[in-house]
């Protein structure tokens, strides 16, 4: 039983780490542009595809091998996807900065659709086996099995998240990004390079998403053009749950969601005596989300802004 408990906890932490990486990208973009970026899940997908491509080139054409090739492919992929993110922002969102909030959101939907179909056309619609980025090593911890890969994912995710936290809260760049997120016109007046800051966000967000995508694909062993959709939705949910715009919130939301999913699967049939099976897991997740938002309408760590101090005009 203890083994099972440990096992489930480790599983939840692994899934949670991946959700968190993607949720962070969501939250960053949201924080700066107040935009729900539907194409963010596709950055996750691109991460896997680009890494796959890079890996086959490095191993096949350059003749690199082993850990070196894997590391190189990982870095190349997240960097490239970061650049793609910047490019997408320039083309599809920048022209819409001064229009309603719905416009960039739906433009991102178009981007998402185009990217998924584009990859489907180029690489085929069916899922493809993805190489493992970690050697298969298992550790037995008090009856639970932990793989090296899980440990790797956890470490990678935490390192990236910590880096982001420092970047946003401690560095001047972070302060500037937050300033831009609050008021673009004022930031501009103060000599802040607003486009630079936004590009920065659209570099880091997709980069994190891509890292999540590579870790994910390597954990589950497959990638597919449509893999961004579901996970993107989950990350979005996590970001909202934690309080969108808040970086610790995104992480917290991601881990909570992962734990709900894992424990929900295990406990729902037990608790309801089989009336509600695992198939109701997502119902449980959404129900908890709704309950949390009813108590804290701005998410767990989101700052509840009082009515008159922040003027909410036209939310959409």
């Amino acid at each position, binding site marked *: 039983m203890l083994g099972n408990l440990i096992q489930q906890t480790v599983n939840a932490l692994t899934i949670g780490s991946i959700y968190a990486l993607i949720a962070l990208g969501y939250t960053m973009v949201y924080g700066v542009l107040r935009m729900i970026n539907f194409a963010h899940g596709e950055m996750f997908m691109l991460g896997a595809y680009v890494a796959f491509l890079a890996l086959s080139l490095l191993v096949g054409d350059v003749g690199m091998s082993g850990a070196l090739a894997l590391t190189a492919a990982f870095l190349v992929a997240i960097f490239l996807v970061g650049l793609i993110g910047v490019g997408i922002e320039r083309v599809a969102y920048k022209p819409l900065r001064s229009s309603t909030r719905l416009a960039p959101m*739906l433009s991102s939907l178009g981007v998402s659709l185009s*990217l998924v179909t584009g990859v489907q056309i180029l690489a085929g619609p069916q899922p493809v086996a993805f190489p493992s980025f970690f050697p298969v090593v298992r550790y037995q911890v008090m009856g639970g099995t932990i793989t090296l890969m899980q440990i790797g994912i956890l470490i990678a995710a935490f390192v990236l998240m910590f880096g982001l936290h420092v970047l946003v809260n401690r560095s001047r760049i972070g302060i500037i990004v937050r300033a831009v997120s609050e008021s673009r016109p004022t930031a501009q007046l103060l000599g802040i390079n607003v486009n630079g800051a936004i590009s920065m966000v659209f570099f880091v967000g997709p980069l994190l998403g891509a890292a999540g995508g590579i870790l994910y694909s390597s954990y589950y062993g497959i990638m597919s053009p449509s893999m961004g959709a579901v996970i993107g939705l989950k990350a979005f949910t996590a970001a909202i749950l934690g309080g969108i715009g808040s970086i610790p919130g995104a992480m917290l939301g991601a881990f909570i969601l992962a734990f709900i999913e894992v424990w929900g699967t295990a406990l729902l049939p037990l608790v309801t005596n089989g009336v509600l099976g695992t198939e109701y897991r997502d119902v449980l997740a959404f129900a908890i989300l*709704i309950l949390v938002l009813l108590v804290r309408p701005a998410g767990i760590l989101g700052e509840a802004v009082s009515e008159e101090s922040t003027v909410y005009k036209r939310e*959409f």
Partner: protein
Amino acid sequence: MAAADTLAAARPRANRTISWLVFAIAIALIMATPFLPNYHVRVLNSLLIYILLGIGLNIVIGYTGLLDLGFVAFYAVGAYSYGLLASPQLGLHMPFLLILLVAACLGAVTGILLGIPVLRLRGDYLAIVTLGFGEIIRIIINNLDWLTGGPQGIARLDKASILGIQIARPIDFFWLLLITVLIVGTVVWRLERSILGKAWAAIREDQDAARGIGINTTNAKLAAFATSATIGSIAGAIFAASQRFVSPESFTLQESVLIVLMIVVGGIGNIFGIVAGAAILILLPELLREFAEWRILFLGLLMISLIIARPAGIVPRSFGPEKLIRGLFGK
């Protein structure tokens, strides 16, 4: 000053031309429909259903300014009302009109049930919760096998008939849908111009200030949700009657998003915008059917370009039914 005068004089004339053009095309299309092959009629029917859904959702998004990503839940409620009440599933074979009424009521009730908990939420939080609500409804339908048939859905639904007239062929549904769209469209348009519609607009612009002038925003928003849900539900019942098969696959999140997209691409807050948006997003892929995956890529790119070219939608907010009527008959 002089330039402004000519402009002002030119505008009604331009308006008149456009109005008559729009009117003529619509009439021509309607007159031609009985002579079109069934496939085309079916495509038009599909278009009309989406227009109906768009009109419904637009109340919440366009008029009241609340982003609802779970609209498809009401569509499902309507469709399953027909599925359950007019099929061998429960052995009930109720008449179509009665079911329509039941569906409308159920829709309103679901709308209010959704509305009550979520009305405190703002913006994106509302969006995710409505999205979650849509998913919850779909998952429940998918899992209540004993009632809804689960993923297998409900097949062999009755053919619909109204007062003894059977509604079975695509063209029958065309007329039914056309009439429904006209009635619902008119009601919604008049509703928008009523004091309630004004309150919705005020909530959209600044809900705190709206409360400050004495608007019970909870009730006004509930009214919006309920009306919108009723329309979605009616669309669902007609959809089920025409498809004669319902299954959870028809009520996915993508469907909700498609309707939002239609509204925004066409021109938010404007009934004619919905028609334009539906035409582009429903007809175009059908016309490009031969191109398989390329058509979806094309659609994605088109979406981006359209939104960038016209962020406020294809049809300007100002060109509404009023403008059309004035252009046709007025001053």
